[in-house]
């Protein structure tokens, strides 16, 4: 269960959002600048709401009334930033291991590395990777944190066509393999179709609808069978 009730101010922009979603994968969908990323950063603890409550699977991360504000490092979330934020001085292996809890088995590490097809990249530095490879490493790093929820901020943004297809296929694979609560920020309907179970439509800092993916697709004029089809390619 994803419970969000937050009020947040960033300069002139004000965000006020309240929703409770039982979905395993929730998409925050809306145009650029509507407050999706701010919501994600607030969930991660990188922006502090003026007031409100954030809880994921009954773990309260922020509750202004109860005086709860769990530090970012202790929220137990795996965040994949739009700009990946791999540590440029560390090889892929060290990037992947950075957030691994103590006691993580070599098998668990290998499973993620294999799933994301990273074995050949482990010794490389981020500067030697392509855009798609960088995203895959960032996803792997967040997964190896063994998070209570995965936060994906436009994971396919700024990727060329092939990289977009490549990363999306891996994300679909992860959705199948892991029972992972996921919050996805996107403004692309095809990403919602491929990865989400429920959609929170946000406009100008306000929730305008909370709907399941079928309703979302119908309102977007997309046939339901298109959900199973390969994603439409986007570039830029």
């Amino acid at each position: 269960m994803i419970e969000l009730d937050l009020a947040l101010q960033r300069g002139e922009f004000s965000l006020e959002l309240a929703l409770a979603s039982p979905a395993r994968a929730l998409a925050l969908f809306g145009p650029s600048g509507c407050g999706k990323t701010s919501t994600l950063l607030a969930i991660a603890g990188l922006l502090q709401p003026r007031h409100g409550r954030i809880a994921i699977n009954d773990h309260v991360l922020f509750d202004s009334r109860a005086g709860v504000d769990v530090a970012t490092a202790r929220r137990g979330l795996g965040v994949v930033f739009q700009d990946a934020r791999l540590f440029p001085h560390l090889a892929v292996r060290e990037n992947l291991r950075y957030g691994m809890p103590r006691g993580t088995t070599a098998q668990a590490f290998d499973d993620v590395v294999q799933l994301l097809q990273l074995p050949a990249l482990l010794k490389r530095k981020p500067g030697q990777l392509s855009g798609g490879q960088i995203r895959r490493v960032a996803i792997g790093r967040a997964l190896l944190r063994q998070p209570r929820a995965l936060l994906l901020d436009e994971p396919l943004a700024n990727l060329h066509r092939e990289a977009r297809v490549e990363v999306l296929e891996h994300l679909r694979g992860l959705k199948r393999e892991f029972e992972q609560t996921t919050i996805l920020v996107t403004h692309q309907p095809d990403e919602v179709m491929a990865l989400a179970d429920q959609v929170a439509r946000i406009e100008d800092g306000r929730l305008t609808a909370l709907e399941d993916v079928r309703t979302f697709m119908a309102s977007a004029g997309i046939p339901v069978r298109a959900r199973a089809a390969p994603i439409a390619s986007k570039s830029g």
Partner: protein
Amino acid sequence: MDVLTPAETVALALSFKVSLVGVACSLPVAIGCAWLLARKRFYGKPLFEGLLLLPLILPPVVTGYILLIVFGHHGAIGRWLDAAGLSIAFRWTGAALAAAVMAFPLLVVALRNAFESVDRRLENAAATLGAGAWRIFFSVTLPLSMRGLVAGLALAFARAFGEFGATITFVSSIPGQTRTLPIALYELISTPGGEGGALRLTLVAGIVALLAGVIAALMLLRGGTRRTEVEA
């Protein structure tokens, strides 16, 4: 034939020892102060920064005199150090303290620039991966500031190596104890017939300063203070 006389060699070795120890002692404090300046907002920050830069601005003799007042045999701290058998006045450790104080602002300035050049989004990413403040600093901020750190160390070492005014005021000129290369050079200039030795020590001081300058330039040119941008 030896290039330097035994006395000149002693002065040179002492200068290296004093500079290395001085800079090493300055480093942890400089790192802490530079991090505060780069990452924190607090009341009185300009005053704090001004105080840190004082040794760079004050006449060195004034700095040396302040050290003498505080750490001399009758000084507030010096008296206590004497009682504990840790006297530093008129000893090489005092010269190292003077070198540390004089080199300190250069280290702070270089490190502050280096820390500010590290993209804070990387530090935020480390926090989401469970890293606390210390781990973020030692695993992300400091490694990404390494070029700026090395440049700062080179400049600080050169400043400590060339230190004269504060040292001679605080610990005088005792051969083998406090007579560092610049002080030995001053003594040679003041002594009839010392021109040859003065020229030799000038040459050595010039080479050390040039090497430090080249190291600093290489580090800074190759990205010492370049902003660390995250990958796309």
